[in-house]
């Protein structure tokens, strides 16, 4: 299915989104090496000579109230935030598939039990629970934060997957493949699941955004690893030191902007994934239409092809 992968990369939205996401992922992977290699870019060093400085030549994004370099912290924070975002999204989406897919496909008693489970998690007051669990496990780091966010964040997705799986499972082609003698696991993962790719990808990307935000939110409330640096802990520190009142915008704008950028990039990628789920959407792209126009005789109007592309 290499054509599918190729066509995914063809739209500008997907390319932009992937480029931005890729940039941040690279930053998360290579950032700590970078800050360690460049002198004066240590996110934890307190430069007492430069406290609360606005962006300038020495510190490109200024310094915090503690004399820490904001650029270095933003670079370092990418790792923490994206780690929590991706891990919690993977856990949340995985649980949603594990619960939602069999519920929708098998129906009956299986559905009743699994649905009961997801309903239970939906009505649970998630934020207080996260607060309690995260507070209880304080000092154990970003892993626990990610696990907690993922574990409490799958239930809505499970309901979505269940509804979609139910609708796909009732379609004739599933029955037809069943008549062929296909076992349940083949039907589940090869006939039904591919139809949910769009939903799952959307859920995952949404989960990444949610994870990054939830981590920031928890850090803002003071529930985070005190030694770890993430965009959330930066905003929390800025808030504690009344950065808004002091007009130190350079302290909280970079991490805030990064969170917004990651969210936008994830949304852009999502547009492209939608086309994966529906092969009909991939038929007429502008490049294809252009190629078609070139091959057809100039007197035959390419109007129909042009309107199809929209």
């Amino acid at each position: 299915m290499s054509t599918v992968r190729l066509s995914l990369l063809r739209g500008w939205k997907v390319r932009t989104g992937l480029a931005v996401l890729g940039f941040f992922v690279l930053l998360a992977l290579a950032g700590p090496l970078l800050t360690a290699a460049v002198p004066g870019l240590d996110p934890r060093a307190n430069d007492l000579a430069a406290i609360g400085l606005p962006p300038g030549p020495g510190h490109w994004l200024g310094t915090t109230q503690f004399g820490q370099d904001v650029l270095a912290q933003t670079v370092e924070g990418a790792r923490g935030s994206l780690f929590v975002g991706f891990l919690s999204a993977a856990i949340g989406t995985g649980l949603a598939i594990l619960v939602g897919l069999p519920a929708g496909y098998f129906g009956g008693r299986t559905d009743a039990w699994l649905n009961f489970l997801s309903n239970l998690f939906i009505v649970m007051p998630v934020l207080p629970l996260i607060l309690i669990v995260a507070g209880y496990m304080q000092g154990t780091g970003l892993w626990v934060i990610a696990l907690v966010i993922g574990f409490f964040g799958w239930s809505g997705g499970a309901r979505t997957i269940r509804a979609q799986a139910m609708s796909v499972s009732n379609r004739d082609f599933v029955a037809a493949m069943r008549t062929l003698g296909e076992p349940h696991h083949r039907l589940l993962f090869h006939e039904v699941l591919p139809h949910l790719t769009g939903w799952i990808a959307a859920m995952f990307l949404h989960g990444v955004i949610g994870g990054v935000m939830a981590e920031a939110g928890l850090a803002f409330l003071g529930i985070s690893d005190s030694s770890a640096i993430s965009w959330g802990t930066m905003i929390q520190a800025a808030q504690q030191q009344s950065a808004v009142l002091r007009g130190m915008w350079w302290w909280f704008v970079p991490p805030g902007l990064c969170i917004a950028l990651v969210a936008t990039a994830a949304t852009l990628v999502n547009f492209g994934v939608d086309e994966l789920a529906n092969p009909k959407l991939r038929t007429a792209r502008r490049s294809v239409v252009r190629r078609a126009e070139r091959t057809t005789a100039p007197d035959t109007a390419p109007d129909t092809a042009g309107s199809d592309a929209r």
Partner: protein
Amino acid sequence: MTAPPTTRPTPVLAAVDVTKHFAVRAGVGSRAVVRAVEGATLDLHRGRVVALVGESGSGKTTLARLLAGFYAPTSGEIALEGAPVRQRRGRVERGYHKDVQLIFQDPFGSLNPLHRVRHNLERPLRLHHGVRDRAELDRRVGELLERVALTPADQFADKFPHELSGGQRQRVVIARALAVEPKVLLGDEPISMLDVSIRLEMLNLLDRLRTEDGLALLYITHDIASARYLCDDVVVMYAGEMIEGGPKEQVIADPLHPYTRLLVESSPDPARGARDREALFDAGADDLGEPPSLIDPPPGCRFHPRCPFAKDVCRTQAPPRTDVGEGRWTRCWLHATDPTATSQETE
């Protein structure tokens, strides 16, 4: 097309007095039972085509799905070559699917839009014939596509369903069923969603499969003309019950049951005048009413509310199956001995 043999061998697939009820929720807290199929008996023989005709909602599809092993009958028995079929946790064993295949009505729905034609044909080959070798798979996929006249085969093998027309899709569906090499093919209105211009082609394909491979075919339709073209025997269903059966020429030319007569008359025939039907039944087509609810079917003969010839006994007692010779039978008090009144002989 061939005369019915006098002594019949064991049918390949048989339904013996099969009943299927579905429980539905009729409202909050109340449950109802839909009597989709009741007391259906049907034999399918090698190389013979049986047509199952009836209007929408008469239980044709339910019967086909029962025969295909989708669900277990509420009562009665389905027998494959004389051996009763058992269901385990709502599924028949895979071996059953090796022998019985179902073709769905809607070729647009019965192919997964995400899989290429190749995938659909390779799965049965892998499942039932253990073909693993790439070259062997390619060869057999090519053969199957050629059998259903989708050539050049190597081109069609890599197409997605949305790149095919309705007729081409239905051929892929048939090829998929053939890949299993079944003994019985159940066609659930296989041509009703197809363009009129390719229906004949499809019927000829089915006919060829029957004569060349000796498949037993069940052809479900509401179109008498195509049943007459393809089949050997006709069975008529009404409101979940089988009401008449026999060799196609006799059943269609001289229907015994009033419903069959109505059904035959309702198919367009250029040789017939516009008013003949009204004259025959002494009523306009609109006055003949709707098929009954299967949740609460009428007592006695299920057809009596619409039947122009209904008698008192029809309203109270279900008619028994009456054999009238030449392999023909019907369920109608017009042809059975009335137990209450003085016997009314007809025919």
